[in-house]
C-alpha cells in the first residue's frame, strides 16, 4: 500500500452523531399538533381551517422575506420553526377572527417575537404568544368573541366576520357563546369537566380538547423532544394553588379540575411553555419556571380583570427565564465548596 493520502480527509472528532436534528424536532412538534388541528377544523369548520392556513403561510412568508429570500429549502424557513409559530398562534385565536387580524398577528409574532431578537434561539418571549398578546391588546373585542363549536355538517358556515376588510369594525351576526372560564368568572356557572376534557366547548381553536393536547405532549415526551417537567410542573402548581383557594372558599373559587381543563392551560403548558428557547435550561430551573406559571395563571384568573391568564403567565415567566438560568447553573462534577473561580480580567 502506498503512502497516498489524497483521499483521506482530516476532520475533528467526534465522528459519531445522534440522528436527531432541530428541523426534525420542529416537525415532530407539528405532528403532535395534528390531532388538535383536525379537531379544531371539525368543531369550527372552514373558519378554523382558514385561520390556520393563513397564520402558517404568513409566518413562513415573513421569515423568508426577512432572512435572505433564497431557495426555500436553504433558508431558515426550512427548519420548520416559522410554520410551528403560525400553527400555534392560530390555535390561540377565536374561530371567527377576521383574517386580516390573523395576518397582522402572524407578522408581529415573527418580526417582533423572533427576528428582532436575532432569529431562532435568540428570542426572549414565545413568538406565538407575542403575536397573540399584540392582538389581544389591539382588538380585545374580536379576541374575546367566541363562536360555539358545531358539527361537520356546518363546515362551510363562517363562524364570524372572517373576511372583514382591514380596519373596519367586524360584524358578528352569527351565534356567540361564552367560554367555560368566562362563564365561571362572569356568570358563576361551571362547565362539566367531561366536555372540557374531550372537547366541543367554546374557546380558541386549540383550547377545546384537553385530551388531544395531552396525547400530543405524551408523544413528544416519549420521543424526548419535550421537557416533561414543564407541563407536569404547571399542572401540579395550578392544582395546588387552585385547590388552596377552592378549599378556603368553595363558593367563590372553582376546584382544581376546572382550572386544569378550562381555557388555554393545557395548550399553553404542553406546547407554549415548553418552547425550549424561552424556557430555562436546567431541571431545577424548569420546575421553578413551571411553578411560577401555575401560580400566575391562578392569580390572574381569580383576581385579575381577564377570565384567562395563561398567555400572560407564560410571557412573564419567559421574561424571568434568563434570571432563573443564572440562578440555577449546574454545579460541576467534583466542585469544591465555594465554586468561586478567581476569574481575573
Amino acid at each position, binding site marked *: 500500500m502506498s503512502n497516498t493520502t489524497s483521499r483521506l480527509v482530516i476532520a475533528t472528532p467526534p465522528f459519531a452523531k*445522534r440522528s436527531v436534528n432541530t428541523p426534525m424536532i420542529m416537525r415532530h412538534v407539528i405532528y403532535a399538533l395534528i390531532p388538535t388541528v383536525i379537531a379544531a377544523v371539525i368543531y369550527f369548520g372552514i373558519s378554523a381551517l382558514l385561520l390556520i392556513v393563513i397564520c402558517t403561510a404568513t409566518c413562513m412568508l415573513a421569515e423568508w422575506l426577512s432572512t435572505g429570500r433564497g431557495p426555500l429549502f436553504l433558508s431558515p424557513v426550512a427548519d420548520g420553526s416559522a410554520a410551528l409559530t403560525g400553527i400555534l398562534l392560530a390555535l390561540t385565536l377565536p374561530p371567527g377572527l377576521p383574517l386580516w387580524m390573523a395576518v397582522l398577528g402572524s407578522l408581529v409574532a415573527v418580526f417582533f417575537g423572533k427576528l428582532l431578537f436575532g432569529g431562532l434561539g435568540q428570542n426572549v418571549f414565545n413568538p406565538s404568544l407575542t403575536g397573540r398578546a399584540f392582538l389581544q391588546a389591539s382588538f380585545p373585542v374580536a379576541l374575546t368573541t367566541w363562536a360555539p363549536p358545531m358539527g361537520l355538517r356546518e363546515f362551510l358556515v363562517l363562524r364570524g366576520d372572517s373576511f372583514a376588510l382591514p380596519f373596519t369594525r367586524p360584524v358578528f351576526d352569527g351565534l356567540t357563546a361564552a367560554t367555560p372560564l368566562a362563564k365561571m368568572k362572569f356568570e358563576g356557572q361551571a362547565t362539566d369537566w367531561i366536555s372540557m376534557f374531550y372537547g366541543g366547548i367554546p374557546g380558541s381553536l386549540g383550547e377545546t380538547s384537553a385530551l388531544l393536547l395531552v396525547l400530543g405532549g405524551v408523544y413528544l415526551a416519549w420521543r424526548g423532544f419535550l421537557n416533561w417537567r414543564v407541563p407536569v410542573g404547571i399542572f401540579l402548581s395550578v392544582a395546588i394553588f387552585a385547590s388552596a383557594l377552592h378549599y378556603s372558599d368553595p363558593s367563590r373559587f372553582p376546584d382544581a379540575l376546572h382550572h386544569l381543563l378550562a381555557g388555554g392551560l393545557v395548550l399553553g403548558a404542553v406546547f407554549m411553555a415548553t418552547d425550549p428557547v424561552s424556557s430555562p435550561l436546567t431541571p431545577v430551573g424548569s420546575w421553578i419556571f413551571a411553578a411560577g406559571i401555575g401560580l400566575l395563571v391562578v392569580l390572574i384568573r381569580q383576581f385579575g380583570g381577564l377570565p384567562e391568564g395563561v398567555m400572560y403567565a407564560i410571557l412573564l415567566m419567559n421574561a424571568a427565564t434568563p434570571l432563573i438560568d443564572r440562578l440555577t447553573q449546574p454545579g460541576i462534577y467534583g466542585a469544591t465548596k465555594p465554586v468561586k473561580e478567581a476569574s481575573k480580567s
Partner: protein
Amino acid sequence: MSEAKTFRHGIHPPEHKELTAGRAIERIKFPDRVVLPLSQHIGAPSRPLVKAGDKVFRGQVIAEPGGFVSVPLHSSVTGTVVAIRKHHHPNGSLAECIVIDVDHTSAQTLYDGYARDWESMSSAQLLEEIRQGGFVGLGGAAFPTHVKLAVPEGKHARWLLINGCECEPYLTSDHRIMLEWADSILLGIKVMARILGTEKSYIAVENNKWDAIKALRDRIPADMPCELVPLETKYPQGAEKMLITAVLKKEVPSGKLPIDVQVVVQNVGTAAGIGDWFAFGQPLIERVVTVTGPGVVHPTTLLAPVGMSLAEVLTHCGGLTDDAREILFGGPMMGTPQQFLDVPILKGTSGIVCLTEGQLQQRQEYPCIRCSACLDACPVYLNPSSLGALARAGKYDDMIGQHIMDCMECGSCSYVCPSNIPLVQRFRVAKGLLREKQAREKAA
C-alpha cells in the same frame, strides 16, 4: 441480569463492536521495519541509548527515561538500527524516532525473558520493575504507569480500579484481552495491589461484554480481594473520574487526581501487560489493536509490535475500502485523525478505526434552541449551551468562570446537539488558547 452501576449523564452512541468483538487476537507477522518514536507517552521523551548500525534484540532497552515522568523504550524486534531521525508521528507532528530494520533470520525470542519472583520483592522494587518494563496506560492516554502507582507522600490508595469499560464505539481490544488473557490481568492486579497496599481491587466492565464479565469472574480466586463490577453501557464511562463515580460513588474534586479520593485507576490492557512482564519478562513491545470500521476490508483484532506502520497493518487487514475517508487512532469520539499511512503503532494505540464518506458528511449547523440535551449529556455537569455561545463570540476569558477547564473533551455535547453545533471542537480551541495565554502570563 444483576443491576449495573453507572455515573450520571453521558450518552450511548451506536456501539458497532460486533465487527471485531468475536475475532480472537491474531498475531501479525513481523514487518521489515519498525519506527519507534521516543515520545509515545505523556511526559519527557526517552533518550536514545543506541546509534545507527547497532544490532538490537527484541525486548532490549534502546532508550532511557528522560525524567521521572518518562519511561524506557524497548526494541519491539530483533534487527539493526538504521537511523534515529524525524518521522511522522500519529499526533500529527514530526518526531524523533529510532528506525530498526528487522532481522528476518532471527527467531525473535525475547531478550532477557525470564519470570520475576514478584512475591519476594518489596513495593519499591516492584515499582522499579514496572518502570523498567516501559509501561504506560494502554487505554489511550499513555500516562507512565509507574508514576500513577507511586503514591505521593501523605496519600494512601485504598482501592485499585481496573478499567475494562472500553466505552468508545468500535473498539474491542480490551474486550478480547479480558476474554483471552484473564490470568495475565489478574497477575498484574496482584502486583499493583501489592505496590499500592490497597484493600480491594475492582474490575469494572460494561454490561455489553457479558462474556468477558463471566470469563473474568470465574477466574478470580476466592482468596483474592478483587470484585468484578458490571456497569451499565454508557460513554464516557472509561474516563477515570466517571469510572470512580460509577464504581465507588465518589467524585474526584475539580482539579484533583483519583489518588485524592484514595483510588488508582489502571486499564485492563496495562494490567495484562504488567502480568506478562512478571510472568515471562516481556516489556511493553507489542499491543492488541482493533482494526475496524466500515472503511477497512477485513476488520481484525491484531497483536502487533509497537512501531509497525499503519500501512502494513491495513494491508494485513485487506486494505481500505474505496469509500474510506478517515483513519483514526483511537475511537470515533476522541480518536486522532491520521494524515499519513507511514505513522507507527504506538504503545497507546488501542484501535484503528476507518470511517467512510457517509460518516463524515457535513451537517448544516442550526441556531442553538436551548434544548438542554448537552447539559443532560455532559458528564462533568457543565453548561455546553452557554459555553458554546461564549466560544462562538470569542469570549474565552468568560469561559473560565463557567469551568471550561474541567471539560474533558469527551464530545458528548457535540454528539447530542440537534443543531449540529461543533461544541467540543470549539472548546478544544478555547482551552488551547487559554492555556497558551496562561503560559504567557506565567512567563511574563
